């Protein structure tokens, strides 16, 4: 019987692996799963040959699937089946009682619902949480994927890690590692992030329940990941199904589809066709080669070979030395310099997830080489791990990275105008004017093409970073990969692989992308002359000659790359340390008995409940990190400074809630409610409703609602709204009110007074996506808040539909009271703003306008940045508390949103006052801020002020925020010293 059934072959070529299945009836004759390292055609031919070896050259039904298989199927002329479709074929055949399939691949994540109408979903373009992401994270932890899995099974706690995409997650994980979090916990947290991403990003409101089938490579291999899925979804053992064929489901589906095509093929012929089409059929565009000839490369190298520093051997040196440590996000660097700045010892290596041990080993080694001839006179540390290392080892100075890098760059080029540092995770650029740092630009998550990104690609293709870089130099036609974030770049690489690009061309293309990303996204320069004459480039990434070349090309200008490009932070720190006379650094003996343990706890200091990591360095010293304010670090703050964000929060949360005569109305404390709460609260309480205000956001509130978010690229302030609605629904209120407001309050300060589309119409989205809302009265009328008369009319008509007739006169009075309450609130905010300014000036404190939208005062959205700022010595005011002190602004864009008109005025205030700085909070995904940030920057920089932008999202790495604010402080201090 068996022999009569036809042979069916399915070939699945995904983003990282290729799979083949040969099936006859129900039995699988052959299956194979291999990584293809981008050599799609070769691997396809190989797999088919191996299959032929087993099944011979009888006619087969054949189909190709997978994201990288699309192009191949076209040129080879073999039927193609979309992979999700292929999967559902298999499931319908093999597991017909399945309710839901979750399939994770290398770069795609998919969900298929079978219950209640088949629905298939794939992740959008902005998404992480896939196999490639897990690989990247394993690299970061310096373990294999298998080890990561093993580690994850022994976790004790889960840290919140951003699940929006791999780049975001990485910026969350790195500080955890640097702060000494346990790898086991981090591993499990990574898996949890994958689960959250899948559930929040793909389920989009549909509940995952019933029998769930898990497919794809990662879910086949990673036991810890399965555990996290089952736990998060609350699945019983029989409902969480892990199929034996999990890795092959798509290939199997393709083989089922093949049978339907009704056309058989000879394997030998297909293999020949695959082999024959190896010629370049590139559809993706190419760039000119980085180097025209070997001579070109040689002269380039000779030119850059000149920027060196004198070196000598520490083991034969006698005299005084200074040590600089740069504890970066992915690497740790050390430099030891002598009296004439000769470089005596250097170290540069990956953190391997534990910088403390590395620094200890290195210091011991340095002391050993020093013997009795050498005295360590001073030390300084910079970088992410600054606080940790300084506390642990008694380092003399902790300095901000910008200062360290500027110090080092000055050594090579005293008249440097511009410094660009591309490190593992960060791109930092600063302009120098009159010997002081003039402006600082740092990359954001979405402009994250940096060193670790090149390294990840190198590893994925099976090369070391140096080999990979070297390959790029000989590329004939580098691929044009664009310059979006890493996740996008992944798919660009995928596309070019599909088109048959070589590793050389990909390497060179990536180098160009890194450069374009830095120039156009981070620096935002349109031409070289905007950067200045003397440009120093540094950071480990510039050791890659391809990156350096691409940078000079793109700029049309020669730059200086010091030979110690990767060590500049440490070298700068060592130079800085020379101001010390005697060092407090741990001695060689102390290092011998140095111990370091870390544990994590939940801070009970306030409702923020920060995740703290407590590092213990032997008997006397400990260092606490992860805290958002001083409380957790058990530091005494010197009498809290004025903080308008705090003031507004307190005011809004203590409004009277009224008596319940007509019912209880829920008001979600999110988005526009932060502005208009006094108005609505005033109206409803005057009408005899009791108002129930949802509490200030926490992570838990967000998680309550994350299942119903339909668009995962919307801003966090919008997404958090779902949680507030869920919370209010739990309170059993009679109605929930969040109106649609096309127009905001007209303050006569701009061309118009709109709300942004999200603030204006989010209720429409809630109504359509939060099913539970159908169980209550969801009130979202379209209202005009600039005419009390119109508002009265509309509200009376609208509310009477739900709560019985309400007399017009009563509504009119309520509206009047509402506006009185709103006016009182705004007056109080302004008065407090002026009071804070006066206080700061009396006490000689710096003033920070922490500007954004009203809802950025939400502690979960603002992540306690206001408190961080006061702890750094700033008096914090909000944009709406001081903008009345300046006339409405004329800007070069359409000034048509109420909130942004305030922002421009606040920027003008900062521009006109020497003691005032403006820091702009920008929510990730805020399209409007793509327009406002440039304007605010222009207003400030036009007046010679610093512009600091903090991009915030679901999870924000406060370590990075602290560095930025400290850089700002450092630059301000330096400027003042100059004067």
């Amino acid at each position, binding site marked *: 019987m068996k022999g009569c059934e036809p042979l069916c072959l399915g070939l699945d070529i995904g983003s990282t692996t290729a799979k083949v299945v040969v099936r006859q009836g129900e039995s699988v004759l052959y299956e194979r799963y291999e990584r293809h390292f981008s050599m799609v055609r070769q691997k396809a031919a190989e797999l088919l040959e191996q299959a032929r070896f087993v099944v011979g050259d009888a006619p087969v039904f054949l189909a190709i699937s997978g*994201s990288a298989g*699309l192009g191949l199927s076209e040129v080879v002329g073999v039927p*193609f089946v*979309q992979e999700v479709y292929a999967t559902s074929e298999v499931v319908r055949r093999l597991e017909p009682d399945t309710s839901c399939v979750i399939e994770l691949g290398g770069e795609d994540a998919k969900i298929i619902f079978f219950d209640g109408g088949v*629905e*298939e979903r794939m992740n959008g*373009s902005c998404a992480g949480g896939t196999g490639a992401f897990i690989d990247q994270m394993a690299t970061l932890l310096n373990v294999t994927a298998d080890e990561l899995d093993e580690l994850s099974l022994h976790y004790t706690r889960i840290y919140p890690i951003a699940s929006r995409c791999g780049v975001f997650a990485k910026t969350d994980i790195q500080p955890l590692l640097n702060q000494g979090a346990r790898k086991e916990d981090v591993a499990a947290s990574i898996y949890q992030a994958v689960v959250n991403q899948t559930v929040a990003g793909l389920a989009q*409101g549909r509940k995952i329940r019933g029998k769930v089938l898990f497919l794809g490579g990662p879910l086949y291999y990673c036991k810890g990941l399965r555990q996290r899925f089952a736990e998060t979804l609350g699945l019983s053992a029989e409902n969480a199904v892990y199929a034996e064929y999990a890795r092959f489901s798509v290939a199997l589906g393709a083989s089922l589809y093949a049978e339907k095509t009704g056309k058989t093929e000879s394997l030998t012929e297909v293999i020949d066709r695959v082999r024959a089409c190896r010629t370049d059929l590139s559809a993706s*565009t190419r760039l000119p080669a980085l180097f025209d000839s070997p001579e070109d490369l040689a002269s380039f190298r000779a030119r850059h070979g000149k920027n060196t520093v004198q070196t000598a051997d520490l083991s034969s040196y006698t005299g005084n030395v200074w040590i600089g440590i740069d504890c970066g996000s992915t690497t740790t660097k050390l430099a030891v310099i002598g009296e004439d700045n000769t470089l005596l010892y250097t170290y540069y290596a990956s953190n391997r997830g534990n910088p403390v041990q590395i620094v200890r080993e290195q210091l011991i080694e340095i002391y050993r080489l020093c013997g009795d001839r050498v005295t360590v006179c001073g030390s300084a540390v910079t970088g992410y791990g600054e606080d940790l290392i300084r506390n642990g080892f008694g380092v003399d100075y902790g300095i901000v990275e910008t200062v360290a890098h500027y110090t080092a760059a000055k050594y090579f080029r005293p008249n440097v105008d511009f410094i660009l540092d591309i490190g593992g995770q960060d791109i930092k650029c600063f302009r120098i004017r009159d010997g002081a740092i003039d402006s600082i630009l740092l990359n954001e998550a*979405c*402009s994250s093409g940096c060193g670790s990104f090149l390294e990840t690609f190198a590893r994925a293709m099976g090369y070391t970073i140096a080999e990979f870089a070297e390959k790029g130099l000989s590329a004939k036609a580098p691929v044009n990969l*664009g*310059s*979006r974030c890493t996740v*996008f770049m992944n*798919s*660009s690489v*995928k*596309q070019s692989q*599909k088109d048959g690009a070589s590793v050389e061309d990909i390497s060179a293309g990536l180098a160009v992308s890194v450069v374009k990303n830095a120039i*156009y*996204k981070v620096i*935002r320069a*349109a031409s070289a002359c905007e950067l200045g004459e003397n440009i120093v480039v540094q950071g480990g990434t510039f050791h890659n000659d391809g990156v350096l070349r691409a940078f000079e090309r793109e700029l049309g200008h020669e730059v200086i790359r010091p030979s110690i490009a990767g060590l500049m932070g440490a070298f700068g720190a060592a130079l800085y340390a020379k101001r010390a006379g005697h060092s407090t650094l741990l001695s060689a003996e102390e290092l011998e008995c140095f111990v370091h343990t870390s544990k994590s706890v939940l801070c009970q200091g306030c409702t923020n409940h920060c995740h703290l990591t407590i590092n213990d360095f032997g008997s006397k010293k400990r260092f606490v990190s992860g805290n958002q304010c001083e409380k957790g670090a058990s530091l005494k703050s010197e009498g809290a400074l004025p903080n308008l964000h705090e003031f507004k929060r307190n005011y809004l949360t203590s409004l009277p809630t009224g008596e319940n005569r007509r019912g209880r109305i829920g008001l979600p404390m999110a988005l526009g409610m932060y502005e208009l709460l006094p108005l609505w609260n005033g109206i409803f309480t005057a009408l005899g409703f009791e108002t129930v205000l949802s509490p200030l956001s926490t992570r838990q509130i967000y998680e309550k609602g994350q299942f119903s978010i339909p*668009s995962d*690229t919307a801003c966090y302030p919008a997404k958090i709204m779902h949680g507030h609605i869920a919370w209010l629904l739990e309170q059993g209120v009679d109605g929930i009110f969040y109106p649609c407001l*096309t127009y905001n309050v007209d303050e006569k300060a*701009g*061309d118009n007074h*709109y709300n*942004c*589309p*999200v603030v*204006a*119409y*989010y209720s*429409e*989205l809630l109504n*359509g996506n939060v099913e539970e809302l159908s169980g209550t009265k969801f009130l979202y009328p*379209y*209202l*005009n808040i600039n*005419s009390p008369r*119109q508002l009265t*009319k509309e509200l009376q008509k609208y509310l009477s539909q739900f709560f019985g007739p309400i007399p017009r006169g009563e509504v009119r009075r309520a509206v009047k009271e509402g506006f009185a309450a709103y006016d009182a609130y705004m007056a109080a905010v302004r008065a407090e703003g002026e009071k804070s300014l006066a206080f700061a000036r009396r006490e000689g404190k710096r003033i920070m306008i922490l500007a954004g939208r009203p809802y950025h005062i939400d502690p979960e959205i603002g992540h306690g940045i206001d408190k961080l700022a006061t702890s750094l010595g700033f008096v914090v005011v909000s944009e709406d508390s001081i903008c009345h002190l300046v006339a*409405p602004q*004329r800007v*070069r*864009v*359409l*000034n*048509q*949103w109420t909130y942004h008109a305030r922002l421009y005025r606040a920027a003008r205030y900062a521009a006109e006052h020497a003691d005032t700085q403006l820091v702009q909070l920008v929510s990730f*995904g805020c*399209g*409007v*801020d*793509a*327009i406002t*940030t440039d304007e605010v920057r222009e207003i400030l920089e036009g007046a010679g002020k610093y512009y600091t932008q903090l991009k915030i999202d679901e999870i924000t790495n406060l370590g990075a925020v602290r560095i930025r604010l400290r850089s700002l402080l450092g630059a301000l201090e330096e400027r003042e010293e100059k004067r």
Partner: protein
Amino acid sequence: MSKELYYIPFTEDMKKDYTILVPNMLPRHFKLILQVFRNHGYKLDLLETDGPQIAEMGLKYVHNDTCYPAILVIGQFLDAIQSGKYDPHKVALVLFQTGGGCRASNYLSLLRKALGRAGYDYVPVISLSLAGIEKHPGFKLTVPLLHRLFYALIYGDLILSLTDQCKPYELEKGSAEALADEFTEQLAAKMEEEGVSYKKVLRNCEEIVRRFAALPMNRVPKVKVGVVGEIYVKYSPLGNNNLAQFLVDEDAEVVMPGLLDFMYYCIYDNVLDYELYGLRRLTHPIYRFASDFIIEKQKGIIDLIKKEGTFRPPAPMTHTVERVRSVIGLGTKMGEGWLLPAEMLELYDAGVKNIVCTQPFGCLPNHICGKGMMKPLKDRHPDMNIVAIDYDAGATRVNQENRIKLMLANAKEQLEQNPET
């Protein structure tokens, strides 16, 4: 308030020897519209350039988080100015914008900023917007011109719709496009020769329908795919990686709701401003008149398509508006607003259940009106097969096409099970 800055008026002198560059959005419509302008003494050039250098140019001069259409349009302008084909001192640019609370109303400012950065701040930019236009003495939308433009739009919609309805079925490849080209050539000239009156337009439309209906066709059941979304990426082949052609190559029939719907939406929103908020007390009768005018003219076209009987006519806007009310409030008027779910419903009612919803990555109104409306639409109509595709300078074609292919695979299965629809 910001309007004086960078504002270079297009003078009457300029009209004589300046070339006005127009970004391409809807090839069919724009060719007609440009011809109408030419007949009125303007020199215009439609930018039909493509290639990755356009997006790159845009990324260089515009904040990279800005919406993709702005990056493309501005990139296309700068690319053209720098191409050497034009004397930069003898070009002007024309930009279409909608205005309103969406950030797209800032395209004009962004373009002027970009021109300034690139050293072309002397180039005049004419903004064509329903929300009003700046003073350009050399560029006046006179009543006869507007009248002709309106009918050019009617013609454009009709020809586009009929071409799409013929293309997958034509026996002679390219015959529908050729016929469309022929009409595009003729119609603008005809307007000048015979003048414009609705009667004449209807007569011409009848001929168009008749001629298309006469093309040799093999009407086998094929998958029908509706395309909706943000106006630029919905229509512009540069913006959507030539989506319409991709779908035709995949053996599907493309159904694109016309530009008239969008125009109606823009005008009707002003009527709604009065009804919802009591705004525009004085001008609202004008908007009311304009929207009624559109409805009336559209009806004539619908009737003659129905009468001929071969083709699927567009749905009357009055019906579309009524249809969408239960899904979303008509006050949602930023970006494509309520029009987006309305068009999806319109398509569904016409038996087009497969829909590609196109949007620029991170499009704010689309969070609400596109992605935010999919669940409520599917709740009502479980057989709707919608895929949302993000377009962006960094998004790759392979990812977009893979997702569209998934939608198509399901659509084909549906078609096999139920060939009637």
